[in-house]
C-alpha cells in the first residue's frame, strides 16, 4: 500500500502489466525518453527497452493504425495520444478498423488494444487541450469507453482495460492527475469494465458523475447533506457499455436524479442516461431529470474556463430544482 497520485497509479498499472505480460507494449509521442508529457510512462523505457516502449513519429493515425496491426498479430499495444484533442486523426482507425475487426472477420481477428488520452478541462491549458469528447467513442459499437475518477480506480481499470479482449479508449481526467493521493495496493487489483460504483449511499436524490466531475459532485453532496438532504452519488467509470442498471436502481429508489458532465450538453452522456432512465425508471420519477454540463459552446480559452465547467454550486442548484 502506498499513497499515490493518479499519475503514479497509472504508471504502476503500466509497469506491472508490462512485467506480467511480455505482449504488452507502450507507444506514442514522447512516451519513451521524456516519460510522456504528463510522466505517465516515466521509467518504462529504462525497464522494458525501446522495442516495447516506442517513441513514435508525430502521427496519430499511424499510432492507432500500427497498434491495430500489432494487436491483430498477438501483441497488446497501449497507445498514448498526447491529448484527447489530438486523437481525431486516430478516430478514423478506431471507427473504421479497431471497432470492426472482430465483426468484419467473423470473430477470427480481434484488437486487444488500449488507447489512452488525457482529457478534460481545469488546467489552464491551450486550445484543444480541455475538451471532453468521450461520446465520439461511446457512440461507436465495438469500442469500450472508460473514464476513471481517482488514483485507485484508475489503476484497477487500466489493468482491466489492458486485459480486455476488445479495444478500449481510456480517458484520463488530466485535472486530477496530481490533485490528490489515495492508498493504492501494491498487489494487482482490477475493476470490471462496464460497472458503475456507488460512492455514497443516500435515499433522497441520485447524482451521477464521472471523471474530474466526481469531486465537485461529492462536494455538492456534502453541501446538500448539510441541509439535511441525503444524496446518493454514482461514479459511472465506464461510459460505454454503460451500467444503466445501477443508475436505474438508484433512481427507482430516489425518484430524482442529476447527471453531471463537463462535456457539452447536446447529445452528451447525460442525454443517453436520460433515455435509458426513461426506459428503466420512468414510472418512479418524482421530478424532471436534471443535468449539469458544459454549455454548447467550444470550450473557451482558459480565462473563462471556470465559467464553462460545472461546479458544486451549479450541481446544488440543479439538485434543489429536482427536489422541489
Amino acid at each position, binding site marked *: 500500500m502506498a499513497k499515490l497520485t493518479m499519475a503514479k497509479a497509472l504508471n504502476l498499472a503500466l509497469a506491472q502489466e508490462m512485467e506480467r505480460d511480455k505482449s504488452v507494449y507502450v507507444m506514442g*509521442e*514522447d512516451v*519513451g*525518453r*521524456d*516519460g510522456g*508529457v504528463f510522466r505517465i510512462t516515466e521509467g518504462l523505457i529504462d525497464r522494458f527497452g525501446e522495442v516495447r516502449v516506442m*517513441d513514435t*513519429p*508525430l*502521427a*496519430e*493515425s*499511424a499510432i492507432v493504425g500500427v497498434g491495430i496491426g500489432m494487436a491483430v498479430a498477438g501483441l497488446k499495444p497501449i497507445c498514448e495520444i498526447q491529448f484527447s*484533442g*489530438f486523437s*481525431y*486523426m486516430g478516430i478514423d482507425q478506431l471507427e473504421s478498423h479497431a471497432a470492426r475487426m472482430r465483426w468484419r472477420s467473423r470473430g477470427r481477428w480481434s484488437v486487444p488494444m488500449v488507447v489512452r488520452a488525457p482529457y478534460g478541462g481545469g488546467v*489552464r*491549458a*491551450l*486550445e*484543444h*487541450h480541455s475538451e471532453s469528447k468521450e461520446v465520439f467513442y461511446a457512440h461507436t459499437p465495438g469500442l469500450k469507453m472508460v473514464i476513471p475518477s481517482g488514483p485507485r480506480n484508475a489503476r484497477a481499470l487500466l489493468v482491466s482495460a489492458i486485459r480486455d479482449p476488445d479495444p478500449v479508449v481510456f480517458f484520463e481526467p488530466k485535472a486530477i492527475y496530481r490533485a490528490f493521493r489515495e492508498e493504492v495496493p501494491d498487489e494487482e487489483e482490477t475493476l470490471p469494465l462496464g460497472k458503475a460504483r456507488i460512492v455514497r449511499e443516500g435515499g433522497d436524490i441520485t447524482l451521477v458523475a464521472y471523471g474530474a466531475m466526481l469531486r465537485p459532485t461529492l462536494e455538492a453532496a456534502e453541501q446538500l447533506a448539510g441541509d439535511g438532504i441525503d444524496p446518493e452519488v454514482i461514479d459511472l467509470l465506464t461510459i460505454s457499455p454503460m451500467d444503466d442498471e445501477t443508475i436505474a436502481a438508484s433512481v427507482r429508489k430516489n425518484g430524482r436524479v442529476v447527471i453531471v458532465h463537463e462535456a457539452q*450538453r*447536446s447529445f452528451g452522456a447525460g442525454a443517453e442516461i436520460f433515455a435509458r432512465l426513461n426506459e428503466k425508471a420512468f414510472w418512479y420519477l418524482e421530478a424532471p431529470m436534471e443535468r449539469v454540463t458544459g*454549455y*454548447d*459552446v*467550444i470550450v*473557451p*480559452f*482558459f*480565462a*473563462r*474556463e*471556470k*465559467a*464553462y465547467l460545472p461546479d458544486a454550486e*451549479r450541481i446544488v*442548484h440543479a439538485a434543489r430544482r429536482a427536489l422541489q
Partner: protein
Amino acid sequence: MPRTEIDLQQTISFLSILDEEGNADEELVPYLDDDTLRRLFRVMLLSRRFDERLLQLQRQGRLGTFAPVKGQEAAQVGAMAPLRRTDWFVPSFRETAAALWRDTPLSGLLLYNAGFNEGGLPPEGNNDLPIAIPVATQVPHAVGLGYSARAQGKDDVAIVFFGDGATSEGDFHEAINFSGVFSTPTIFLCQNNQWAISVPREKQTHSRTLAQKAIAYGIPGIQVDGNDVLAVYVATAEAAERARAGGGPTFIECITYRLSLHTTADDPTRYRSEEEVQAWERKEPLIRFRRYLESRGLLSEQEVERLEQEIKEEIAQAWEEAQMQMENPDPSVMFEHIYAESPDYLKAQRDAFQKEIGGG
C-alpha cells in the same frame, strides 16, 4: 537494359548567404533597401525580447502555456518579408516572429497567452489565419487558400508554417501532394528546429533531409540555413515569384534550432544535452545579422541601444493595454461566434447562464 537509373529531373540544393560571423557571400545577397534591412533586424530583436517577457510573465503565473520562438526568428521573419499583406499567412503555434512582421499587436498576443479568445482576432487588412495547435492540420488550408486566390484571378500566394515533426502527419503529405497536382500558389515553410518535443529529427523520419520530400511530390524543394535571414528571404522570394507566375508550390526546409523550451510545460534537460544547445547558440540568427548590418554601416552600438529601449517601452505599454482588457472579463463571451446566428437553444443557455451568474 532491364535495370536502369531513373532520372528524377530534380535535385535539392542548400542555400546559405551569411555565415555565423556575419560574413556574406556577396554574389548571393539579395537587393534590399536599407529600411527593409533595418526592419528585418528590428522585428527579430522585438521578437526575442517579447519572447523573454512572455516567459517571465508565464513564470509569474500571469500567462498560460506558450511555445517560445527563440532561435527561429530569422526563419520566420525572412519568410514573411518578401510577402504582401494580401498573401495568406497560415501559422502553427510558434510563429510569434512571423506575426510581428505582420504588425500583429503585442497586446493581442498577450491576451491570447493570458487565455482570452479576444487575442485570436487577426489584424485588420492582413490575410492571417489564427494560431493552429493540432500539428499539421493547418497545412491543407494553405493549399485551398492558394487555389482560391488563383481561381479568383488574384496573384496572391499562401505560406504555411510547420515543424519537422509535422512532416510525419498525414495532413502534411495529403496537402503537399494535392498542391502539386493542382499546382497551387503555396509555400510550404518547414522550420526544422531539430526537435518535436523530445523526439529528435532523426527519429521523426528516416529521410536524409526533409527538403527531399518535395521530390516525392514533384515540386521544387530547397534546404536553407534557417538562422540566416537573407537565405530564407531569397528562398521565399523565389518561391513566391514562381507561385505568382503560375509555377506552383515550393517546399522550403529551414535548418534552425529551438533554443528554448518546447513550451513552458516542457523540461528539455530530460532529452537533450547542454552542449548541443550551446553549439547552436553560436549559430543563432540575431548576432550574425547584426554584425552584417554593422559591417554595412546600417547599424551601430548606439542604434541597437536605442532600439532596445524603444522595444522595452513598446512591450511594457502593450502589457498595460492587455491588462486593462483582462479586467473583469465578461464570461458570456464564450457564447459568441459559435455560429453566424446563435440557435435558439444556445440563446436559452446563454440567458440561463447570465441569470445564474447575475445571482438569479
